[in-house]
């Protein structure tokens, strides 16, 4: 793949990197990568999990130091020692894992490190007013005085982006910005990106969702195993070709291997595996009914705050239901804690990998076996041999990329962490697997593998309840879909009725339909490359 003339490559790049190399204790994460950003472009960075995308942008923004290579900003050699240095030069990152001060307010987080002062003390009034103005400008409905920790992940992410904008960034790096955003917020994000682009800000956009790339990006750089595959204009590049470049496969291989994803639910007629009736908890759950049969993948759809995650947590016992009944395999259960849920044969993959998933200082193997430890224990001692066998099996099966099972999980790329967490649950051999945004942050190749794996498990008699904000995933991946709204189930769509439209209609209900539908379109505008965006960069 060669650079091409269709996009404004003739512009002097604002930022240029050449031959960037980075090693982590023996593992080469980046090997001689070149990268350039011109003002006003939206530059996609794609590659499999662990390809080195986050590492590259961390070097660009001063979070890591490079082991080799050169970097120029506005034609001058640059090397940022800290993120603060990078910010001062206008290079700002919103990282994959959000870093925030949970107890501090939105305004404090936005202005952290550069609080407006008066007479040497913080000018709270101005800080709050400025933040309110910024939020209004960006179309965000957020109280500057709210503690950040009380907001949803999506909103925290928007605050992080708002902070980047207010820093007057000339380069804004968004590392998987939409992974925790709902449709409406994605639309806000797009609008934001277009506005920044018009102002001449260069944007680096990392995402595993191709719809998004085609919707907002002008150029794309592909990395594979830490090496540069190439950079070119996105317009005119076929989706399949892009995937091939990412995975290093030929078109023929890809088409042959594409088995598709269609779980034909055997949906046995006998008693359902799970039968939950009128689940209630506080104001978030106001009577949810769900049924899952063996061999079935039931999608759980709904807008942010509709009670999807709450339903899952109530079933698992993480936040027990206050009312309603749950029957598993025909037996009434009342899970009051995750322990109870696990004992009953339920597994729950949380949506928040960092806060509720990984134990950062423990190894891949220890993280993977955490939930299954009791089964690996004999006479009170964890059997190393059994543990190793289990870990190796799942690392191979899910294609987990790590230097060894002894590597600390925090050193893995985001997508590989997610795979470890999925494996943590699979090795407990659950009857009912509840997954909350299972493929969040997982690359397109692995995503297919994981979906296939879930299918296989379902075919083996497991019941699966899948929460997803990704409509495509719901349509492709579920046997049926239950739609929640305001803490109640409002629709159940049978196999034939599941389409993106029908889900959207049910999610929004009544008047809101139009608004949501329009917000979703940019993302679902499939393969249409965004022609106008390419011109803005010129």
């Amino acid at each position: 793949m060669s650079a091409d003339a269709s996009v404004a490559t003739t512009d002097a790049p604002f930022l240029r990197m050449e031959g960037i190399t980075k090693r982590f204790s023996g593992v080469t994460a980046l090997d001689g990568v070149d990268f350039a950003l011109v003002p006003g472009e939206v530059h996609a960075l794609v590659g499999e999990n662990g390809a080195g995308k986050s590492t590259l942008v961390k070097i660009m923004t001063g979070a890591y130091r490079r082991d080799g290579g050169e970097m120029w900003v506005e034609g001058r050699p640059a090397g940022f020692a800290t993120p603060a240095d990078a910010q001062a030069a206008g290079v700002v990152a919103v990282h994959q894992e959000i870093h925030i001060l949970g107890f501090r307010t939105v305004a404090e987080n936005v202005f952290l490190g550069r609080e407006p002062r008066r007479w040497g003390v913080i000018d709270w009034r101005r800080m709050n007013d400025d933040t309110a103005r910024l939020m209004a400008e960006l179309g965000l409905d957020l109280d500057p005085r709210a503690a950040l920790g009380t907001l949803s992940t999506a909103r925290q992410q928007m605050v992080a982006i708002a902070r980047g904008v207010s820093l007057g960034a000339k380069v804004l790096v968004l590392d998987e910005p939409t992974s925790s955003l709902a449709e409406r917020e994605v639309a806000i994000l797009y609008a934001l990106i277009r506005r920044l682009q018009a102002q001449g800000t260069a944007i680096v956009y990392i995402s595993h969702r191709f719809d998004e790339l085609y919707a907002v990006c002008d150029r794309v750089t592909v990395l594979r195993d830490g090496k540069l595959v190439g950079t070119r204009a996105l317009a005119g590049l076929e989706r399949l070709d892009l995937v091939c470049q990412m995975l290093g496969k030929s078109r023929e291989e890809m088409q042959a291997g594409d088995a598709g994803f269609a779980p034909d639910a055997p949906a046995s007629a006998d008693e359902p595996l799970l039968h939950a009736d009128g689940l209630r908890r506080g104001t978030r759950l106001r009577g949810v009914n769900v049924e899952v049969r063996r061999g079935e993948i039931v999608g759980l759809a709904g807008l942010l705050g509709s009670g999807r995650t709450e339903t899952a947590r109530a079933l698992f016992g993480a936040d027990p239901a206050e009312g309603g009944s749950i029957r598993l395999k025909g037996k009434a259960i009342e899970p009051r804690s995750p322990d109870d849920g696990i004992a009953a044969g339920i597994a729950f993959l949380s949506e928040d990998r960092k806060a509720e998933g990984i134990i950062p200082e423990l190894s891949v193997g220890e993280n993977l076996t955490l939930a299954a430890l009791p089964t690996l224990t004999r006479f009170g001692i964890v059997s190393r041999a059994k543990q190793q066998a289990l870990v190796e099996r799942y690392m191979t099966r899910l294609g987990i990329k790590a230097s060894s099972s002894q590597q600390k999980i925090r050193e893995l790329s985001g997508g590989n962490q997610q795979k470890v967490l999925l494996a943590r649950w699979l090795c407990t051999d659950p009857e009912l697997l509840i997954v909350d945004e299972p493929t969040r942050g997982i690359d397109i190749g692995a995503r297919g593998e994981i979906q296939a794996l879930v299918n296989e498990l379902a075919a083996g008699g497991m019941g699966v309840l899948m929460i997803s904000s990704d409509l495509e995933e719901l349509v492709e991946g579920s046997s049926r879909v239950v739609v929640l709204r305001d803490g109640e189930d409002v629709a159940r769509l049978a196999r034939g009725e599941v389409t993106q439209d029908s889900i959207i209609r049910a999610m929004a209900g009544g008047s809101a339909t139009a608004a949501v539908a329009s917000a979703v379109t940019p993302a679902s505008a499939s393969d249409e490359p965004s022609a106008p965006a390419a011109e803005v960069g010129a």
Partner: protein
Amino acid sequence: MSETTLAAVPRAGRRRLRLSGPTAGAAIALGVLVGANALLTPNFASAGNLWNVLLQVSTVLLVAVGMTLVISTGGVDLSVGSVMAIAGAVAATTLDRGIPVAIAAGLGAAAVVGLLNGVLIARFRIQPIVVTLATLIGGRGIAQVLSNDGELVPIDNPSFEFLGKGHLGPFPTQVVVAIVAVALGAFLLRATPFGRYVLAAGGNPAAARLAGVPVWRTIITVYVLSALLAGMAGLVEAAKLGASDAAKIGLNVELDAIAAVVVGGTALAGGRATVFGTVIGALIMQVIATSFNMLLVPYAWSLALKAGIILFAVYLQRPRRV
């Protein structure tokens, strides 16, 4: 530029350093200390003196093993010194009913304090530093009340004193007790689910809970274990003294134990622990104290130097920039 110099460092070398982790710094420091003392301090390298170092370090080590577990859950146990005093006082006052009763009563009393700490911390979610500060203060008071308002309670029982003065073969009993505790601590952390749960609860409690880790039970158990080990240290100390001195036994031991743990490379934030490191940390502190004593360095100066060495050892294990 710094980037290029970094690239020049051989990879394998850096990896090895990393594998041994933060404990490597402490091990090097201990090696240097012992080497320098062997050369400079007369009689330091004699067998008698080395036994002396081990004898001196054994009570702190007992406490520090428990402290390692507590700190790796992200907590801290300030009450250990008072627990030592309570265990000593209870054992001394119940000794007339036989040694097994005295030991059981002493350890039992210690366990009760640990249980109180654990329950307040795990179930009532009070900060560990606050809870154990309260039991530090209150515990010392109770120990003195138990021994008739702080009077010295003499122990006149050679069999009991065996714990602090006797030998098992060539080994002093208290050294054996400490070694057993170290082995037990390392075994728990490495080989049992409990050890895994301790690190998980310390590393990310929310994630641990969702993975089915009994977080409460783990934390309570950790504080009970810490108290039991401190209780054992109290019994040893009382046996060594031949009396229970409720006002003095275990005074400031929490600080030595925390220093040993931190110098050894256990993360104060929790989630990472090394019992082996703690042993090295405790030895460093003891070697400093012993050698200064032998060199007749004034006590006040030895404290300042000790502080400097703690800071240096912890500096060596600061997180490296990647």
